[in-house]
């Protein structure tokens, strides 16, 4: 009895199968690449009014799809940050002098102006990699890592995710875990909590670098409702341990009855702060929980995308975010996509606009406007178009506005009517190109 020719049997079966499927047999596919890399690139400009922060950013996502639904995604992002940011001190009716964070020089803010630290300049480079592949027929596994570096900050992170499909892939349960370890090495060193801002050249209140670790867990379910609708619900837990204070931010120390800043005199022959300022201090643990829901619906060629997020944390910050996009096709190759986003948050329990002279220092205090009570609105429009060879390009222009309030209980004496939340207006412009 002759041995069956396995290769010939396989080839015959392949031909028969292809004939049944109406396809022509092709060369056998080994574990190799499909086609080539796909690239998503973007140039982004973010600019705040009043000479505050400006960010010019270049981003690249490169994806290589392999056979069997495996894929590799690599990311690169370079940010060039310039401008000035509020340093936490209060706006006053007199000029105020501050020592720069480096401790090497001083700067003066005119009377009536919000104190901004103008030495803010940084370049951030971030790299990421993610591998995704099916495990068996119904599971998908992803593993990734990311690293970023700034002049004073280094971030290292790893993450993994697993999802499983149910109900003919109409329901997907997913779980993800991310861990990161960051190091903050501030210019001039890390100031001790609540230590006073010192004269130029005096770094006696500074220590070395600080670290923090962040653990994130995300559990999610997505569900296809019908041919045109899909929904998603995620629960996220995030725990941060370590240094979360802003080492460049201070608080004004004020007189308890007048509310005016406490003056000080620098040492003879040396430049230094004109008033008493103390560096802020935040808790070294923070636990956040959030619920996120998303619904996407296709109707008449248009796609409506609505999401809502509720977040709460043990700094007593609660926030609500409502985000909506509507993709509206114009012909076969172009679309317009209006976007609105509403955000509101309550203040952290240690958010304080100033410290009162003679009173015991609180456990924690910060006048970072991002920890205050504010509402924000984003409104924008994206215009996308297909180019030759199925390359995609888009332009996005958005306006972002923050409006905050400071509770009257926080204001003392002359501060009423003089101290206001540092409202923010920013423009976001982006050009994207995918090929």
């Amino acid at each position, binding site marked *: 009895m002759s041995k069956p020719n396995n290769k010939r049997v396989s080839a015959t079966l392949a031909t028969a199968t292809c004939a049944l499927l109406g396809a022509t047999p092709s060369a056998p596919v080994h574990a190799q690449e499909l086609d080539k890399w796909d690239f998503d690139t973007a140039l982004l400009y973010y600019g705040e009014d009043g000479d505050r922060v400006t960010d010019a950013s270049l981003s690249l996502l490169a994806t290589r799809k392999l056979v069997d639904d495996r894929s590799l995604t690599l990311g690169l992002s370079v940010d060039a940050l310039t401008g000035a940011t509020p340093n936490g001190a209060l706006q006053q009716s007199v000029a105020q002098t501050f020592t720069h964070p480096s401790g090497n020089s001083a700067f003066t803010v005119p009377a009536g102006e919000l104190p901004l630290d103008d030495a803010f300049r940084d370049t951030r480079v971030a790299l990421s990699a993610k591998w995704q592949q099916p495990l068996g027929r119904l599971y998908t596994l992803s593993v990734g890592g990311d690293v970023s570096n700034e002049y004073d900050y280094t971030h290292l992170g790893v993450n993994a995710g697993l999802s499983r499909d149910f109900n003919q892939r109409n329901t997907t349960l997913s779980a993800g875990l991310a861990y990161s370890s960051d190091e903050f090495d501030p210019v001039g060193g890390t100031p001790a909590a609540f230590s006073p801002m010192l004269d130029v050249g005096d770094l006696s209140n500074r220590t070395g670098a600080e670290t923090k670790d962040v653990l994130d867990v995300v559990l999610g*379910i997505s569900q*296809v409702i019908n041919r045109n609708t899909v929904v998603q619900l995620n629960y*996220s837990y995030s725990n941060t341990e370590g240094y979360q204070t802003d080492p460049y931010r201070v608080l004004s120390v004020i007189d308890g009855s007048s509310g005016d800043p406490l003056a000080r005199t620098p040492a003879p022959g040396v430049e230094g702060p004109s008033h008493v300022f103390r560096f802020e201090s935040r808790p070294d643990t923070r636990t956040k929980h959030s619920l996120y829901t998303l619904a996407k619906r296709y109707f008449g060629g248009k796609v409506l995308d609505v999401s809502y997020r509720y977040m709460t944390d043990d700094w007593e910050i609660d926030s609500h975010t409502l985000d909506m996009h509507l993709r509206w096709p114009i012909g076969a190759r172009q679309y317009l996509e209006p976007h609105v986003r509403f955000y509101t948050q309550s203040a952290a329990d240690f958010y304080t606009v100033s410290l009162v002279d003679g009173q015991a220092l609180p456990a924690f205090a910060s006048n970072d406007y991002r920890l205050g009570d504010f509402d924000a609105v984003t409104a924008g429009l994206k215009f996308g178009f297909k180019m030759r060879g199925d390359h995609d390009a888009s332009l996005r222009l958005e306006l972002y506005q923050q409006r905050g309030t400071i509770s009257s209980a926080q204001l003392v004496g002359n501060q009423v009517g003089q101290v206001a939340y540092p409202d923010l207006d920013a423009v976001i412009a982006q050009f994207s190109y995918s090929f």
Partner: protein
Amino acid sequence: MNFTKSWRAMLLLGGMCVITGCSSLGVEPWDRDVLAKDEMQLVSAPLDASLDDHIYFSKEASSGGRGFGGGGCGCN
């Protein structure tokens, strides 16, 4: 909000959905033409999403939700 309770409720909801309720929702594999479109993916513009996450992480006290909390920057 009591998150231990809400977590349990979500797991219960997810479990029930998988076992019973949601099995009546959804579509047959051959009805996925619309859902397969790029613009119908849960994250249809990944680069826009990551840039937005980075901006809002830098300017607000909340982050994450859609995915991990993001960050990895000093972000003043």
